[in-house]
Structures are given as structure tokens and as C-alpha cells.
């Protein structure tokens, strides 16, 4: 199975990179842009064939290493 993990900063956590991107977009003339937030995406393959088991493993990885729950949220997508 494949896991796609999307990690984003929690609401309320300042994202200066998102702010800089927003400023650059406005500089290019893109109007009406707000709340730009930058995150990251991690893809990995798992030997598991069971979706629930794969999800549980990815969840454990997020808790232990991939995300920092102090400042980040994560979402896991499992595909065959």
C-alpha cells in the first residue's frame, strides 16, 4: 500500500513562509489571495496489504517522527 501524509502547521501557528509566498503572489498581481499556508507531503510504500494496518502504521510514524503535534497537524491517505 502507499501512504501519502500531508503535514500542515496548526491554525494559529505563525507561518512566515506562507506570508512571504502570499506577498510574492500579490507582487505578481494575483489579487484576492489570503491565508497562504505552507506544509509538506511525505509519500512512502508499505509492505502491508491491509488498509487499516497500513493506516495504523502511518499514524504511528506521524506520532513518533513525521509530525510534531506541538505545532503540526497531519492527514493520512492510503492507496493500493
Amino acid at each position, binding site marked *: 500500500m502507499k501512504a501519502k501524509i500531508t503535514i500542515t502547521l496548526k491554525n494559529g*501557528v505563525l507561518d*512566515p*513562509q506562507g506570508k*512571504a509566498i502570499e506577498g510574492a503572489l500579490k507582487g505578481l498581481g494575483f489579487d484576492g489571495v489570503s491565508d497562504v499556508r505552507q506544509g509538506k507531503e511525505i509519500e512512502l510504500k508499505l509492505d502491508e496489504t491491509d488498509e487499516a494496518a497500513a493506516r495504523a502504521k502511518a499514524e504511528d510514524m506521524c506520532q513518533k*517522527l513525521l509530525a*510534531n503535534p*506541538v*505545532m503540526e497537524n497531519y492527514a493520512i491517505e492510503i492507496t493500493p
Partner: protein
Amino acid sequence: MKASVIVFPASNCDRDVAVALEQATGQAPQMVWHGDSALPDTDFIALPGGFSYGDYLRCGAMASKSPIMRAVIDKANAGTPVLGICNGFQILCETGLLPGALLRNANLNFVCRTVSLRVENNQSIFTRGFEAGQYVDFPVAHHDGNFFADDATLDKLEGDGRVALRYVDNPNGSARNIAGVLNDAGNVFGLMPHPERVISPLLGGLDGAAFFKGVLEAAA
């Protein structure tokens, strides 16, 4: 005093900390590689500054999971003093030994200059070399020193006197100008500024020498 300095791949202040510790104690510390799983007999542990694992994933994230850190966490929980400077502070937050996290600097700049700090709490073993309310000058050099924690955590840290050092002129956007925090038991301390870089007039100051002398006398 048997001090240990943990060396991670891409630590770059490990030898500076070793010099500062040796100057303060008269004894060279043991340099311990991150891949080791056991610590030598030690009564003080320093996690140095640098860019361990190239700051991949998050600053300090990989280092916090390295084999030696399990032994460091056990020692910290048993009461051994543990000092984390800069990347060492980031690593301590990633292990959970210290609360909060260090985010990208609010101004997005890598900040490299000497900053003034106010000693908020001089009762800890790490700040006993100073007077309460004293101002000290330490250099900072970091891209991710913006201390973040939720308001409840910040209130608790302040209420318990665990904010030991505060920036006079906040260089990175840290919540409540926090430059250095203690754990609940007071034996773990993390700070972004570099006391090991001001241990001689030749290096631009002596405030760091007072820091290490105080810490090591208290820890001895």
C-alpha cells in the same frame, strides 16, 4: 565533574562547548557519538549547536530519535543536568524533555548577532552564576529559534519560573520573548543563544564563562 558532549552528524559547536566545559572544570569532557546506545559515567550532558542531520524534516527531529538520546532521556529523567544550546534546544523540545517547539524565525532571516538577555530566574542550576534581573550578552546564530507553545503552556512556564532567560530585543519572534526554558524538575535547560561563544575577552565577552562556571559548580 565528568561532563559529556553529544556529537551528532553536522553538530558544529561541539568543540566550542568542549572548550567552555574544560575551561570551567579543568577537565576535558567526553565526546559521545550519537550512534552509541550507552553513555559513559557522566554527571553533566551538553547537546551542542549545529545543524544535526541537515535540519531535515524539522530541526532536531532526527537527532531526537538517535540511539544515544534514549540514554540521555533516561539520565535526564533520573536528574542528571542536561543543557541544550541552539540545535541542542531544538533537540530537547523534539524529545519532549522541554515543552514547545522552535519554529522558523518570524522575519525569515537567519539571525547572527549578539543579543542582550535578561536573567529572569537565577535560582536554577543553569543560571546561578548570574544575579536575578542581570543583563547578559550572548551571540545567537539560527534560522529556527522562534519559540512556540500554546498559551496555557506559556502561562505555566511563566508561573513556575521556568522562563530563565528572555530577549531584550526579540530577534526571532519567540513567544513572550523567551530565549531559554527549564523543565519542570529544573535539571534540563534549553536556550537558543550561545554562551560557549563568549568565554574569553578574545571572543568578545565573558558572560558565557560565568554561565558555565555557575552551572558546573551547581552540578558538581
